[in-house]
C-alpha cells in the first residue's frame, strides 16, 4: 500500500467541491482512499489520523492538498486526474441550462399545467380506479372510467357524488365514448352530426355510431355509461344525465339509448325522461318487447342496426320504418348434411348477446358463455356445442391476456378448432375497428381464415365464414380496406351484426339449398 500527496498552492475550492472531488478520485482504479482538502492544520491532522498522511505537511488553509492511498502504479495517474479535474470547468457549469419541468404525478398536479381540463380518462387497475375517479370529481372534472372491477357500491357512490356536482361518470367498464368529436378509448372516427347516443354497452355504441356514419349521418356525442348503470341500485344515473344533456344540447336533434333491458323501475324513469326530452328518442333495450318501450317521441328498435337506421331516418326528417334482413343474392357452396351449426366467435360482448337473441328466435337454443337464458350456459367454454356463440372478451378469456380486439391469437385458435368440427356450417365473426383496436385485424385474421377453409375443404366440406366489420372510412384501419381483405378470402360480409346473424341463420335453416341462392 503506497501513499502519494500533491499540494496546489493558493488554490481555493469550497469544501463541498472538494468532497465531491475526493469521492471521484476514490473511485479511480487502484485507489484505496483519497481526500482533497484545503490544508488547514485541523484538516491536515484529520488526514494524519485517517492514515492518508504519514506526517503533517508544510501548507496552509489556502493550499489545496490531495492525499491518496493505493497501488503505487495507480497513484500517479490518479493525482494527474485529480489535478486536471480541478482545473477543468466542472461539468455542472456546462450542464443542461433549460428548466426541466416535472411531468405530472397526480390528477391535481396535472391540472396545474393544463388549463381547461374538463375530463379525466381513467384506465388504472380496478382496485385504484374508484379513488382516482373520486379525486377527479372532487376537482370538478367529468370522468370516463374505462377500468373494470370497480365495486357496485363504489359506482353508486361515485355517480351520486358526480350528480350532486352536475358532473358525469361514464363507466366503470366504459369502453367507448365520443365527446366533441374526440374518440375516447375504444371508439371510431365518425362524422359529426345531429345524432346523440347514450349507451350502456361499448360495442353497442360503436355499432350504432359506425352505422350512422356509414348511412350518411353523423354523431353529436356518444356517451358511455358502463354496463351496470341501469342496475336497480345505480338507477341509471349516468344514462339519465346523458339523456338530459343531449336533450338540452342544441347540436343534437335525435337521441339513441342503448342498453340491455333495465330493471322495471329504472326503465320507467328512463322512458319517462326520454318521452319528455322534446326530441325524438330511439331506444334499443336489447331483447325488450317494443310495445313496452313505445311512448310519444320514443321509437323502439329491436337491434343496434335498427336503432342506427331509425336515427338516420329521423335525422333526415323521415319516419323510421321496420327493417328487414337485407340478404341479397347470397351465394354459398353446398354444405354436407352433417354441417348444421353456427359458431359465433365474438370480440364484442354486446354483439355476442345480440346474436344470441336473434338466433334464439330463429333456431331455438343458443349456447354461450354469456347466454340470454341461464340454462343455455356452456358448461365448458372452451368447447362449443351445437349452435354456440362465444364472447371472447369475457373475463374468462382475458385473464392475463389482452382483449381479443387487440390480440387475435385466442380467437384464431378457436377458429381452427371450429373449422375442424364436421358439424359446423357457419363461422360468424365480428371485426371491430377504431382507436384502441388492433391496427390491422385483417392481417392477423386472413391467413387463419384461409387455413380454416383449407382444413375444411381437405375434409371435403365447404365452410361458410360470415361476419361484419364495425368501423368507418376515417378509422385508422380504414373500413373498406379491411372489408376488401376479408372478402378476398371469401368471407361473406354484412354491414351490421344483425344482418350477419340473419345471414348465418338463413344458411343453417336451409341446409338443403344446394348451390342455390337465398
Amino acid at each position, binding site marked *: 500500500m503506497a501513499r502519494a500527496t500533491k499540494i496546489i498552492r493558493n488554490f481555493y475550492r469550497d469544501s*463541498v467541491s472538494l468532497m465531491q472531488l475526493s469521492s471521484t478520485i476514490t473511485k479511480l482504479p487502484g485507489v484505496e482512499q483519497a481526500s482533497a482538502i484545503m490544508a488547514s492544520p485541523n484538516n491536515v491532522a484529520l488526514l494524519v489520523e485517517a492514515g492518508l498522511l504519514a506526517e503533517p505537511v508544510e501548507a496552509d488553509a489556502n493550499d489545496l492538498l490531495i492525499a491518496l492511498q493505493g497501488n503505487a502504479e495507480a497513484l500517479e495517474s490518479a493525482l494527474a486526474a485529480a489535478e486536471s479535474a480541478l482545473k477543468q470547468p466542472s461539468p455542472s457549469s456546462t450542464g443542461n441550462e433549460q428548466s426541466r419541468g416535472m411531468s405530472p*404525478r397526480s390528477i391535481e398536479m396535472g391540472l396545474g399545467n393544463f388549463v381547461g381540463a374538463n*375530463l379525466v380518462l381513467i384506465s388504472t387497475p380496478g382496485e385504484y380506479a374508484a379513488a382516482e375517479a*373520486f379525486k377527479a370529481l372532487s376537482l370538478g372534472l367529468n370522468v370516463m372510467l374505462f377500468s373494470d372491477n370497480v365495486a357496485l357500491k363504489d359506482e353508486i357512490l361515485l355517480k351520486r357524488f358526480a350528480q350532486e356536482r352536475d*358532473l358525469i361518470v361514464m363507466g366503470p367498464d366504459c369502453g367507448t365514448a365520443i365527446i366533441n368529436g374526440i374518440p375516447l378509448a375504444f371508439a371510431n372516427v365518425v362524422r359529426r352530426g345531429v345524432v346523440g347516443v347514450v349507451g350502456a354497452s361499448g360495442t353497442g355504441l360503436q355499432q350504432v355510431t359506425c352505422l350512422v356514419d356509414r348511412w350518411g349521418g353523423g354523431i353529436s356525442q356518444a356517451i358511455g355509461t358502463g354496463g351496470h348503470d341501469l342496475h336497480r341500485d345505480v338507477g341509471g344515473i349516468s344514462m339519465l344525465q346523458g339523456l338530459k344533456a343531449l336533450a338540452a344540447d342544441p347540436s343534437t336533434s335525435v337521441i339513441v339509448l342503448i342498453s340491455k333491458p333495465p330493471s322495471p323501475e329504472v326503465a320507467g324513469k328512463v322512458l319517462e325522461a326520454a318521452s319528455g326530452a322534446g326530441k325524438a328518442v330511439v331506444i334499443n333495450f336489447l331483447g325488450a318487447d317494443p310495445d313496452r318501450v313505445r311512448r310519444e317521441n320514443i321509437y323502439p328498435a329491436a337491434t343496434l342496426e335498427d336503432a342506427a337506421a331509425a336515427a338516420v331516418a329521423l335525422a333526415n326528417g323521415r319516419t323510421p320504418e321496420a327493417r328487414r334482413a337485407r340478404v341479397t343474392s347470397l351465394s354459398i357452396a353446398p354444405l354436407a348434411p352433417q354441417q348444421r351449426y353456427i359458431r359465433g366467435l365474438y370480440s364484442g360482448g354486446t354483439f355476442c348477446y345480440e346474436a344470441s337473441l336473434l338466433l334464439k328466435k330463429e333456431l331455438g337454443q343458443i349456447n354461450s358463455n354469456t347466454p340470454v337464458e341461464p340454462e343455455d350456459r356452456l358448461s365448458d367454454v372452451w368447447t362449443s356445442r351445437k349452435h354456440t356463440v362465444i364472447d371472447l372478451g369475457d373475463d374468462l378469456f382475458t385473464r392475463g391476456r389482452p382483449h381479443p380486439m387487440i390480440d387475435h391469437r385466442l380467437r384464431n385458435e378457436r377458429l381452427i378448432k371450429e373449422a375442424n368440427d364436421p358439424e359446423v356450417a357457419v363461422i360468424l365473426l365480428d371485426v371491430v375497428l377504431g382507436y384502441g383496436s388492433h391496427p390491422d385485424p385483417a392481417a392477423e385474421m386472413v391467413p387463419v381464415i384461409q387455413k380454416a377453409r383449407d382444413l375444411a375443404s381437405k375434409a371435403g366440406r365447404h365452410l361458410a365464414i360470415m361476419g361484419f366489420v364495425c368501423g368507418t372510412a376515417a378509422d385508422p384501419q380504414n373500413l373498406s380496406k379491411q372489408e376488401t381483405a376479408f372478402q378476398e378470402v371469401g368471407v361473406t360480409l354484412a354491414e351490421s351484426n344483425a344482418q350477419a346473424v340473419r345471414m348465418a341463420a338463413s344458411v343453417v335453416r336451409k341446409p338443403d339449398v344446394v348451390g342455390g341462392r337465398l
Partner: protein
Amino acid sequence: MIQALFQEKLHVLNVGLSSFADSITRAGGSVLQIEWAPPAQGQQEVGRALARLVNLLSVETANQTAFDAYQAAQPVLKGVGTASRVLPNMAERMILHSGPPIAWTDMCGPMKGAIVGAILYEGWTENLARAEAMASSGEIAFEPCHHHNAVGPMAGIISPSMPVWMVTNTTNGYQAFSNFNEGLGKALRFGANGLDVITRLKWMGQVLAPALRASVELLGGVDLKPMMAQALHMGDEVHNRNAAASSLFLKRLISALLKTRTPAADIAAVVEFIAGNDHFFLNLSMAACKAMTDAAHGVPGSSMVTAMARNGVEFGIRVSGTGSRWFTAPAPIVDGLFFPGYSAADAAPDLGDSAITETAGVGGFAMAASPAIVKFVGGTPQDAIDNTMAMTHITVGRNNAFTLPALNFAGSPAGIDIRKVVDTGIQPIINTGIAHREAGIGQIGAGITRAPLACFMQAVSALAKMVSAT
C-alpha cells in the same frame, strides 16, 4: 351543466394506459398523460382516504387559515434564557432531545452520548459510567424538544441549565426556543461528551450566553425573518448553509456587544467563537421556523405539516389538523458526501429537529437559493432549481418573504400538504448534516435526504378519519 362540456374544447387528463392518450392526440384532441403509479405505495385504504380529502372544501379552507398564520408570523429574537426557567413544562430532572418521543434503550449512539454529556454538564454526576446508569435508570425524563416549543439540531439535547434562544412570533405572541450552536467537529449534538465538549458548553453558559443576552436586550430584539430572507439572497438556504446568515447576525450584534459590560477578553472570545462557526445562525433559523410553523398548528381539518423531526431512529411529522400526534417511520440514511476517512457505513440515520427549516419552506425547499448545497450529492445548480420546483407540487403556497433570485424572485414553496405528498409520491427534500453512528465522533458528512412517505400516509388516514367524523 354537463352539456356545457359540449360547448367547450375537450381537454383530457389521461390516467392509465398511455395508448389512449396517443389516440386522442392522433384524433386531434388535447390530452395530458399523468405519470401515474398507485398512490400510497399501493395501499388501497390509504388511497381511498386520500381521495376523500382531495380538494375537500373544509381542508382547503383550513389550509388557507393555517398558511396565512404561517405567512403572517414575525419571529423576533427577544432574548436569551435558561431552559429550566423559560421552556414550558421543563422539569428539573428532564433532558430534551430531537425528533419524536423515544425511550433511552431505543436511542441512537449520538443521542445517548449527548445525553450522557448533558448529565455531566449538569453536574448530576461526575462519572461517565454513573451518568449512563442514571440515564437508563428512569430517574431522568426524556422528552422531545418539540413538546416544549423548542427545537435542537442533531441530538437536539437541551438540559435544564443550558442557555436557549427565545424567539417570539410578534403576530400571535407565542414563543419558540432553541439551544446554542457549538460549532463543527466534536460537539454534544453529535454525541461527543469529552472534557473539551463539556468545558465549551460551560463557557457557552457562563460567558457566551450572558454576553448575548445583554446584546439582544440592548438591541431590543432582532427580526429574524428579514435576516433569513437576506441570507437566501446570499447563497444560504439557512439549514445546511448558514455562512451568510451567521455573518449578518454577527454584524447586527457586534456594536451592541461592544456596548455591554462584557470584559474585552470575553468579547474577543465571543466574536471569535461566532465568526469561527458558519452554522452559528442555524439554531436561530430553526427557532424562527418553529415559531412560524407553530402559528399554523392546530387548525382543525388542515393537512399542512407543522413539524418534521428525526431522533436518529424514527422520522416523525406533525400535522396542523391532527393535534400533537406524531406520525413516524424509520429514519432514512442520508445520501451525501463524507469527510476524509468516513463512508456511508459510518453514518447514523437521519437525525435532528433541523428539518423544521424545510417544514417552514427554507432548507431543501429553498435550494434554488443555494446552488453550493446541491454539490453534496453531485448535482448542478439546475438540480437545485429543480428540487425547489418539485416542492411547489407538494406545498400549500409560496412564502412571499423568502424570495428566490434564481426563480425570478418567486417565493419559496412552503406549507407541505400531506395530501399532495401521498398523491404525487414526491417526498419532501431535506438538506442535512450526517452524524457518525457512534457517540462522540461528530459530523462526518452532509447531504440530502427525503422524508419517508409512510409518515404522510399515516397522517392522511388519520386526518380522513377526523374529517369524516365531523
